[in-house]
Each structure stands twice: as structure tokens, then as C-alpha cells.
């Protein structure tokens, strides 16, 4: 049924919905429903208006500190023609919100933003049509304003009076009448984030802050290394300690529950001391050689043009394992009550986690309720889901009692799934005109997603006496890609061949880290572009522009070159400048960056000076939110690239705290960081969060090469490596 037909039924607002969902996802012409409406087409799955005029908007995406709650609220308020504060947002909750999968891949605005944009616009049109009947005024003469539909003669009907029955219980249509851009009040305007006041005044802002009546505190004891088996555990000392409620053991899963948090911590230490383990194993430290020795499944993902000449230039790049390293270790609260298990969690996907927990505790999924609450940071698949699994497993052993579990720092550092170590190899030839004529690129990588959905993807599911199978490691197909994300250059080159070499066997536990393979592939491609520019005796910016056709790509590159003052930059001794560009996933946000650095040759220390960057992520809903996310991406990528690598020895992960896994501190963040947001009103939302990761890494390496004359192709460019490399030349 099309909306027109529905409206033609007059007062009969209750209609049957027996038609299968798939049939609703497309209209008669086959036009797809926008964003996540394709999967959840009912308008009232997204927007509910109470008879009191209250407006609630539902999203299946999670607030991770990226500000998506605020941006989605802006979209809804704009299209519903109400003040920003009139809208209450409900985020990811398996009993309340649509299933939008994971909050990942910079997809939240594309998926949920687009769905809410269209659902809100269509709801507004339905309200206008209903008011037209009530007021006997043609709908074209009515306007929506501040929560009412207003007629030319001044009569008005509040939304709450119009929603009796099932007005919004209808399917979305493929096309919407959006508020025209000139009269927008909320979208595109700088709106302050709704979550910040609570966070800076001690409000209950995180799952870590959740306190339920009768809540007890748990800590887990993890094996000393992956695959270690618990040989013996003497729990008597821990059990006798003050406040201890219980010690739980299931195979290699060990935890203690106590009345208070510090009592749990102390008992955990005692329990840990009393455990003996049969060793597991860790891979050799020469991890890249080890990875290249493992079997790979090779796929040619780009093959255009024909090879004419052998490659003149070849470079190989390495990336270590990186960790998410949230400042607050993962946490969750579980409660089994009246046969139902509720888990408060900072997962990125409440529905997939519900499936995994249901399997873990052997309960039907509809008896498991996952509610998202914010946690610390995120940046991908960290320990959040593991904590959810731990809390679930412990909660079912103590029905009626809320159990809060938080990991310790060394557990987070040692057990979170890391961003995979990778190797890339680039080869190219230049023509006489200084253009690239052929390009080949190979990328070796593990999977970049071992997210749950299966109990075996949770730490608890791996550790229990009867462990669960994890989902087999897989790739994310192009054009988005996983390990091979952004491995196909956006540059215009006659001959391009790209081979994705997927390594199923995982020497260390890995999963999604912000940007997935794009971080390494863009680092490699954009480093190599500079190497080729040097070979072609060309300016790096001009060399890139020579190979770019997409006008939006050209525009971010030019915007950054201009703001940075690329053409007038004056070199000082020890200083260099670097540039890089990418379009995230080759289909999302455009991003370019320029920076200058100073390198101290003796110490190998890099000081980042001025950074200018520009991002085009389509229509900008909250420009300051985009700036905030982009600044964060730049600084985090600088930290990864300048400092970070997971380390281990034969016995254990050795990078188990901030002393042994240093990250960037205030004295090493850039002297200045300028983000230009290039707004594209009316263009689709492209997402923001991951665009900066790859280009920032390459711009840094390019600046170091410019400053020193030495190209470093291995991450991290930490002082030890920089100094050692410079000593060798």
C-alpha cells in the first residue's frame, strides 16, 4: 500500500500489516528505502508521538562519545519542525530500538541518520495530511511549526491531538519531502552535545557509573597467555576474605564476586595468586615474517589495464598490532530476574551481543535484554562485549542480584582484540611525463572483525569448560573491504592490480580497530605516492592532483594546501612537511591533511607543529561534532603511528599497562590543529569517524621523510626506530 492509498482510506488509520517485510523494503518501482528504513520500515519503529505531544526518536546506533545522539536528535527535530529540546532520543536497546547491527564503519549517519531524516519528514507529512482532514484545509496550505500544524487562518492542531490511532504505524516510502535547506533551524547548526553537561558534573554517564539496588562487584582472573589451561585453583583464601560473596569457576573462566569493588579487587589478586596454569602460547616476535609464512587466500580485487613495463619502484610497509586502549577498562552489569537476563553494556552492537549471550548462557534470545550505556572510548571491538559476556555468565549464577564486572587495566591491555599486524607491498612505474603508468599493490592481513554474534567470540565463551565455536574468520567484501579496505588507489592510473592476501590463522586475537585495513593501506599508498613524487621530481600535492579526477577529492586537497600555505612554506633546519589524502573506503568521506614536524636526529623525537586538514562527509549535521571527531582521529592516529605497538615475549603480552604501551601525551600533540568542514548541503551523509586515521599516518611519515631525507616504512615511527634508522644512513 502506498501512502496515498493509505490516506485515501479516510479515518481508518488502523491497517493490517501482513505483507512480508521484504516486500515493503522496496516500492513498486523498485526504489530502495533510505538508510536503515530498508530493514526496519515502520515509521513508528523510529518515531513515536504521545498524545501529550512528547516526541521520542529511536535509533539502533550507540553513543560512543562520537556525538551521534546529538546529531540524530538534530535531524529529527529539524524534520519534525520542533525545537531541538522537544525530542527525546532512545539509543540501542534490544527491546526498544530497531536492530541496526553494529555502530561501526562510520555508518551511523548514513544508516540511522538517513532513516531518521526520512522517517521524521514522512511523519510530519502524515501529521499535515491528518490535520488537513480535521481542519478541512488543503494540506498544501498547512505548515508544521513548533509541534503543531498551523492553518492560514491561525487555527492550529497539536501533534499530540493528531496521533490517536495508528497514524505512524505505517511503512516508510522511498521518497520524502524534506524541510528545504534555506529554512533549516537545527541541521547544519552548531548544537552543543547533549551528553557533555552530565559528563563534566559527575552525572551517571557511563555503564561504569550504574548502581542498582543490591548490586555486587565482580572481577575476573584471566589466563596468563592465550590458550593457557587452568591446572589448579585453590579458592579457599579468596573465599575467606572480607566481603567475598562467591568464587565462580567454569573451565578456564574464573571470577570472584564481592560486596564492594575493592573487596573484589583484593580477592581477585588472591585468587590469581592461587591459580596454576598450563602454558598456552604466543607467536614469535618477528610477527611479520611469521604472518607471511602462514597460508593466505589470495583474491585479485582490482585488475584494470595491461602491464606494459616492469615496475621501477617497490616498497614494503609494516604495521604492528595496535590496541584500542580505552582509558576506562570494559565494564558491564548483568541481572537475572524472573527468568529474564538484562545486560547493561557498552557494546557496539546490542543485538549481536544478545545473540552471543543467549548462546553462552543457553537462554532464548527473547529472554535476554541488552541495553546500551556509554563506556569509555571504543574505537572498535574492544573488551566491551567480553565484559558483557562475563557479566551475563556471573549474573545467571546469582539470580536476583545485579552483578557489575569491570576489567583491570592489565586485562584490558592483554585480552582486548587488537588491530591486526599487516604487511603491504607497492610497486609502480612512472611515464616520461611524470605520471604513474602502472601500479601494483599487495596486502597481507588477518580478518578485521571477530565481533560477536557467536558465544565463541566472547572471552567467556572461549574460556568455559565447554567452549563455544567462534564464527570462522572472514573478510568484508569490497567495495568496503576489511584488511583490504582502501587498498585500491583512488588515483587515475592506466594499469592497476591489487591483490588481497587474507590470512585466516590469527597468531593473536584481533578484530575491528577504527578504520580497519584503511589505516595501513592509506599509510602505504600515500607514503608511496610521496616516494613516487620524489622520483618524478614533482611537488607531492601537485603530483596527487595530477592523478585525481573526482572534483570533491580535488577540492579537499586544494583546501588543505591553501590553508596550510603549501606553496609558500619556508623550510627551517630539522623541519619537514607532509601531505596525504584518501576517501575513506573509496566511497565515504574525503579527507586531506598537511602537517609540519621537527625531528631531533639524535633522540629520534618527532614534534608535530602545525596541522591543517579538511573533511567532506556530505551534508554536515553538526559541524562542530565533525570537527571534534576529526581532531580526535588525527591525534589518535598520530599516537598509533608515532608510538604504539603491542609487545610480547614467550610468556605473556608485555605491553600490559600505559608504561609499556605508551600513547600520546599533551607535550607531543600538535602545536595547532585546524579542521575545515566542507559542507555539502543536500548530499548524502558519508560519516566522519574514521576518515583521518590513514592519511594522518602517511602525512606524518611523509613529513619525517621530508625533514630527514630518510623514508621510514614501518610503524611505529617511535624515537628508538627513528634514531636507529637515521644512524644507519
Amino acid at each position, binding site marked *: 500500500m502506498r501512502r496515498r492509498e493509505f490516506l485515501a482510506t479516510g479515518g481508518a488509520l488502523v491497517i493490517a500489516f501482513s505483507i512480508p517485510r521484504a516486500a515493503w523494503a522496496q516500492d513498486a518501482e523498485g526504489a530502495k528505502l533510505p538508510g536503515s528504513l530498508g530493514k526496519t520500515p515502520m515509521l513508528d519503529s523510529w518515531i513515536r508521538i504521545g498524545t501529550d505531544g512528547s516526541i521520542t526518536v529511536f535509533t539502533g546506533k550507540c553513543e*560512543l*562519545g*562520537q556525538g551521534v545522539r546529538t546529531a540524530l536528535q538534530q535531524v529529527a527535530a529539524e524534520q519534525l519542525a520542533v525545537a531541538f529540546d522537544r525530542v527525546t532520543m532512545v539509543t540501542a536497546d534490544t527491546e526498544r530500538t530497531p536492530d541496526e547491527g553494529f555502530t561501526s564503519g562510520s555508518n551511523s549517519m548514513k544508516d540511522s541518520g538517513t532513516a531518521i531524516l526520512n522517517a521524521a519528514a514522512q511523519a510530519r507529512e502524515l501529521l499535515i495530511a491528518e490535520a488537513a482532514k480535521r481542519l478541512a484545509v488543503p494540506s498544501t496550505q498547512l505548515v508544521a511549526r513548533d509541534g503543531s500544524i498551523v492553518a492560514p487562518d491561525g487555527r492550529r492542531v497539536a501533534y499530540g491531538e493528531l496521533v490517536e490511532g495508528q497514524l505512524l504505524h505505517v511503512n516508510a516510502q522511498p521518497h520524502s519531502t524534506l524541510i528545504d535547506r534555506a529554512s533549516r533551524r537545527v541541521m547544519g547548526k552548531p548544537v*552543543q*552535545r547533549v*551528553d*557533555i*553537561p*552530565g*559528563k*563534566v*558534573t*559527575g*552525572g*551517571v*554517564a*557511563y555503564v*561504569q*557509573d550504574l*548502581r542498582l539496588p543490591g548490586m555486587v562487584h565482580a572481577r575476573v582472573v584471566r589466563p596468563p597467555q592465550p590458550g593457557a589451561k587452568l591446572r589448579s585453583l585453590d579458592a579457599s583464601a579468596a573465599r575467606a576474605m*572480607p566481603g567475598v560473596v562467591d568464587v565462580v569457576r567454569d573451565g578456564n573462566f574464573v571470577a570472584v564476586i564481592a560486596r*564492594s*569493588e*575493592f573487596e573484589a*579487587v583484593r580477592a581477585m589478586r588472591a585468587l590469581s595468586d592461587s591459580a596454576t596454569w598450563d602454558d598456552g602460547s604466543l607467536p614469535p616476535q618477528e610477527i611479520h615474517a611469521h604472518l607471511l609464512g602462514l597460508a593466505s587466500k589470495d583474491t585479485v580485487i582490482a585488475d584494470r589495464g595491461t602491464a606494459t613495463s616492469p615496475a621501477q619502484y617497490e616498497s614494503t610497509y609494516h604495521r604492528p598490532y595496535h590496541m*584500542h*586502549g*580505552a*582509558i*576506562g*577498562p570494559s565494564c558491564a552489569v548483568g541481572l537475572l530476574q524472573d527468568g529474564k537476563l538484562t545486560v547493561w553494556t557498552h557494546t557496539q552492537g546490542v543485538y549481536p551481543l544478545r545473540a552471543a549471550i543467549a548462546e553462552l548462557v543457553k537462554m532464548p534470545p527473547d529472554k535476554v535484554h541488552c541495553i546500551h550505556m*556509554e*563506556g*569509555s*572510548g*571504543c*574505537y572498535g571491538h574492544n573488551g566491551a562485549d567480553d565484559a558483557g559476556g562475563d557479566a551475563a555468565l556471573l549474573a545467571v549464577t546469582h539470580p536476583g542480584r545485579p552483578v557489575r564486572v*569491570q576489567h*583491570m*587495566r592489565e586485562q584490558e591491555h592483554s585480552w582486548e582484540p587488537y588491530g591486526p599486524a599487516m604487511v603491504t607491498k607497492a610497486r609502480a612505474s612512472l611515464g616520461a611525463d611524470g605520471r604513474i603508468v602502472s601500479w601494483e599493490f599487495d596486502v597481507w592481513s588477518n580478518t578485521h572483525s571477530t565481533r560477536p554474534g557467536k558465544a565463541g567470540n566472547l572471552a567467556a565463551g572461549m574460556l568455559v569448560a565447554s567452549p563455544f565455536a567462534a564464527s570462522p574468520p572472514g573478510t568484508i567484501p569490497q567495495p568496503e573491504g576489511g584488511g583490504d579496505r582502501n587498498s585500491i588507489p583512488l588515483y587515475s592510473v592506466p594499469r592497476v592490480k591489487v591483490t588481497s592476501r587474507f590470512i585466516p590463522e590469527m597468531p593473536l586475537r584481533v578484530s575491528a580497530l577504527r578504520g580497519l585495513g584503511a589505516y595501513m593501506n592509506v599509510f602505504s599508498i600515500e607514503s608511496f605516492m610521496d616516494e613516487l613524487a620524489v622520483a618524478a621530481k614533482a611537488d607531492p600535492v601537485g603530483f596527487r592532483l595530477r592523478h585525481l579526477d573526482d572534483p570533491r577529492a580535488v577540492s579537499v586537497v586544494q583546501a588543505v594546501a591553501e590553508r596550510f600555505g603549501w606553496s609558500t612554506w619556508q623550510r627551517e633546519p630539522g623541519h619537514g612537511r607532509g601531505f596525504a589524502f584518501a576517501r575513506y573506503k573509496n566511497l565515504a568521506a574525503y579527507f586531506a591533511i598537511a602537517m609540519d614536524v621537527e625531528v631531533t636526529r639524535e633522540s629520534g623525537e618527532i614534534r608535530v607543529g602545525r596541522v591543517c586538514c579538511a573533511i567532506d562527509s556530505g551534508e554536515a549535521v553538526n559541524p562542530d561534532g565533525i570537527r*571534534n*571527531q576529526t*581532531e*580526535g*582521529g*588525527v*591525534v*589518535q592516529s598520530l*599516537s598509533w603511528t608515532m608510538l604504539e605497538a603491542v609487545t610480547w615475549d614467550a610468556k605473556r603480552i608485555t605491553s600490559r*599497562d*600505559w*608504561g609499556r604501551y605508551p*600513547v*600520546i*601525551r*599533551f*607535550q607531543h*600533540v*600538535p602545536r595547532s*590543529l585546524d579542521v575545515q568542514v566542507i559542507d555539502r548541503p543536500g548530499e548524502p551523509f558519508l560519516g566522519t569517524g574514521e576518515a583521518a586515521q590513514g592519511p594522518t599516518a602517511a602525512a606524518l611519515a611523509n613529513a619525517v621523510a621530508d625533514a630527514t631525507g630518510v623514508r621510514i616504512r614501518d610503524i611505529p615511527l617511535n624515537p628508538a626506530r627513528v634514531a636507529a634508522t637515521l644512524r644507519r644512513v
Partner: protein
Amino acid sequence: MITLEVNGHRHDVDVDPSTPLLYVLRGELALNAAKFGCGLGQCGSCTVMVDGEAIYSCITPVSTLAGRRITTVEGLGTVDKPGPVQRAFIEEQAAQCGYCIPGMMMRAQALLEKNPGASEDEIRKALEPNLCRCGTHMRILRAVARAGKLMGAK
């Protein structure tokens, strides 16, 4: 029993004297702002002020704090009446996930009470012990400078 003075209020707490202050703030006193980050004094997310000095509450036993003046973010103001540091962080939108921010604010408060006109280099140096993983550093620096101006203007 130990008597702690937190944000101007006295609390008698019955805990083991070796318990770090952080657990008493979050547990017995149900204050949310100070956060558990590392338990090692490496990240600063647990930072509070004791007699005007920024300290790591995760490694400071309550036994050392009887009779001393403890201040947490809750003592700086409220959502309705935010103090200068809180106002500055809101005005600069200086948070992403925000988990590290209360610790940053307390370290900033300790600096600015002594030196509201702190230069950017002085602010960077003072904040060096505190980690932010979201990369909000540039905004935090601006917020602290702004807070200094607000405090100076008071």
C-alpha cells in the same frame, strides 16, 4: 572508621584503611566523577584534589587522608550551576567519550587555583600525567585556558 572531608562534607567511612580513595568515592560515597582507569597512577582518570594538590585517587590509601580537604568534580559545581572549569569544558565542547575529562578538570583546577593565567606551555606541562584516548587534547587545552580566564574574571 575514618572521617573524610569531601567537597566540604564530612563522611565517616568504615573501610579497610588500605582502600584507595577512588573506591570510597565511587562506592561508599556514590560519587561518579573520579574514574577507574588503570589503578597504577599512570593515566590520571582518577585525579582529585587533596588540599589543593592533584593526586591519583586510585593509589592513595584513605588512611593518609583523615582531616584533609578532598575535592572532586562534584565539588566544582552542578549541571544547573557549573563552576568555571565545568563551564569552560562545556563551552569548548571539550569531550568525546569524556571518561578522562573529570581527571583533566581536577588537574586543571589544581593548576588554575595557583596560576589562573597559566600559559599554554604551562597547561601542557601540568596536564602531561593525564591520558586522553579519544584525542580531545586540543579542546582540553583551550578549555583550561578559558577556565583560567573565567576564574581570573571572578
